[in-house]
């Protein structure tokens, strides 16, 4: 079995986790919830094998090409889903997060992303590559949880005809998003900004240079700083906070994909 067979098996398992997740939303779905959870664990195991085989084979960190990074981001998202499901119960957010995972897996395994191993240019040969990218993507995975919870929050009407109030649901979603930011924001700060600055100062001789990738990770980070502070001011909590959590994650996605394709700079390796 090579990395791609494991990846495909993981993909299929995640797909099943998503389907059973959606089934659990109907009626008394607690059985399906459990099935979805264990499918997720199984998929994570298969996916870990795929990443390990790749890493051993290439002798390089598993995030030096777009394919590897997307696969690793999907893996991190699964980890975040499993941790949050265990600790806080994701409820409706769960299956939609699986949708994000499945989309990332589809992208990773699509022919649009070349699968070849490329030798590393001199600037990328550093153990900081491990620390910088893995911690950043792990942080972004938790920010993805906040993104999905906030999106559902925004789409949940305050009142539904025939039903009492949706307030309890909405508050749970708001709380879930905050908890996810509380994990994702410190990780992103450490991985993207602090480790990024340390590595840049070692490789390029300056810790900050207003390179487009640097600016966009700063923008992402500022969005989440904004998110935290809107919650301190009365009237901003709720809808506006949720909107900012959504925009923040879009900024993270643009940092991840957009900067490489639309803007040029030092970071355009992959």
């Amino acid at each position, binding site marked *: 079995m090579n990395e791609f067979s494991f990846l495909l098996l993981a993909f299929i398992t995640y797909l099943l986790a998503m389907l059973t997740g959606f089934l659990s939303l109907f009626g008394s779905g607690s059985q399906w919830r459990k099935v979805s959870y264990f499918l997720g664990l199984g998929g994570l195991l298969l996916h870990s094998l795929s990443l390990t085989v790749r890493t051993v084979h290439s002798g390089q960190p598993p995030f030096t090409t777009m394919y590897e990074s997307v696969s690793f981001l999907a893996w991190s998202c699964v980890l975040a889903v499993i941790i949050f499901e265990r600790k806080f119960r994701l409820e409706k957010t769960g299956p939609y997060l699986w949708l994000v995972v499945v989309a990332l897996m589809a992208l990773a395994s699509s022919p649009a992303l070349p699968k070849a191993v490329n030798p590393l240019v001199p600037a990328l040969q550093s153990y900081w590559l491990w620390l910088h990218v893995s911690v950043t993507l792990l942080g972004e995975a938790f920010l993805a949880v906040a993104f999905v919870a906030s999106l559902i929050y925004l789409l949940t009407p305050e009142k539904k005809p025939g039903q009492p109030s949706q307030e309890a649901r909405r508050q749970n979603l708001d709380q879930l998003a905050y908890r996810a930011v509380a994990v994702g924001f410190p990780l992103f700060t*450490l991985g993207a900004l602090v480790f990024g600055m340390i590595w840049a100062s070692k490789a390029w001789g300056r810790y900050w240079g207003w390179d487009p990738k640097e600016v966009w990770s700063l923008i992402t980070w500022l969005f989440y700083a904004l998110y935290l*502070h809107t919650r301190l001011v009365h009237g901003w909590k709720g809808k506006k906070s949720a909107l900012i959590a959504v925009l923040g994650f879009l900024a993270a996605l643009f940092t991840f994909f957009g900067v490489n394709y639309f803007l040029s700079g030092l970071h355009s390796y992959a």
Partner: protein
Amino acid sequence: MNPKGAWKFLTSVRLAIALLILIIVLATVGTFIPQEREAEFYQKNLPGISGLVLPLGLDHLYRSPLFLSLVFLFLLNLIFCSLQQIPAKFRRLKTDQEAILSASSIILEPQERSHLERWLETDLIQLTSIFRKRHYRVRVSATADGKTFLARKGWPGLFGPELVHLGLIIIIAGGLISAIFSQRISLALVEGQTEKIPGRDFSLRLDRFTTEYYPDGSVRDWKSLVSVLENDQVRLQKTIEVNHPLKYAGMSFFQMSYGHDWDRTLLELEIVWSQSRRRTVTLKVGETIHLEDGARLRALSFIPDFQVDDSGQAYSRSAEAANPAALVEMAEGDKQVFLGWVFHGHPELSRYQRRTGPELKVDLKNFSAPSFSVLEASSDPGTDLVWAGSGLLVLGLLASFYLPYREVRLKQRVGSPPVLLTYARKNRDAFHREVKTLLSLANKKDLKDKGDE
């Protein structure tokens, strides 16, 4: 605005929100408008908005007065906000017993408050153990005036945000110091060359420079073995690689790239007079050598990536040897017999040549140029501040989110009903409810504290 209003404005979270939004918008704009180009570039490529770009300084946005003043206002906001928050938080930690019993409560708001049905007499001991098991520090005191029970934990969490903000203040300060005082010099050294570092009393000598390649021909690493010289004495010898700079006397030296000194290329040329008469010579660019019969061959120049512009001028498209060509002149006596460009790997190309004899040919067989190492020397007095600030920032984030501050006060003044006061930085209602549950545990003496088993 009166002073009080100005103070309130400068410490407010609303200002922070407004500034964050403005900074996000401007930073975004700066990634879509190419930075640090000539004025003509904007007039040519962005005719619609160049009238806006240049006056606002959007062509160098991140050091423009507009952006810097926003950052400066943000810094002030952070400083004033911290100046306001820190004393209040210390006051919260200090109000132990003395104030609790006094009638004029100076206990800091906001906090949740409720009245208890009855004063917990003997169960206070049990309550103490319940809270201690949950890692609270508990203090009970009784005077003639009344009794108090004080339990709290997680003081780092109380100061977490302040630590974050202080870290940020230090990082921004470090950034400003870097922007003003940092120095960078680019050094291009060939092997054996010594260069004095401007403003310093030492020199750097490149002893050996090697480029390592992958099997597919792409660069794997550049290594510069350098010596630091002080008064002609070798102080230190070290290999500088990408990602492995040399630090010396407050300066850092980085391996940036490499290049070839094409003006000193050594050429191997083959001269073909006829099928049977040919000769190979090596000479440097600029050199003339004498051949037999009074003929002379001169290498006028060398271009690594030959290209011709609109006006017919030859130039090099890049610094790489992608299309190498040498300009060669040959004369017999005072008569020029050959002048033109000869191309490596394309002996048949004669478009840019003039010659008298149709048989005469010159071929560029080989070439090699001395390579130089490009090092960058930098000194940046702001860096250490940025690292210190980053450390505080990360510690502060951990404290803010993972060491929540919790405070519980029970107090009873003689003749008034007992009061419960709780305080947490977040989730205050939930915490108040949780504490009430804990209290009810102590109330029911016979029930054991289930949570501890």
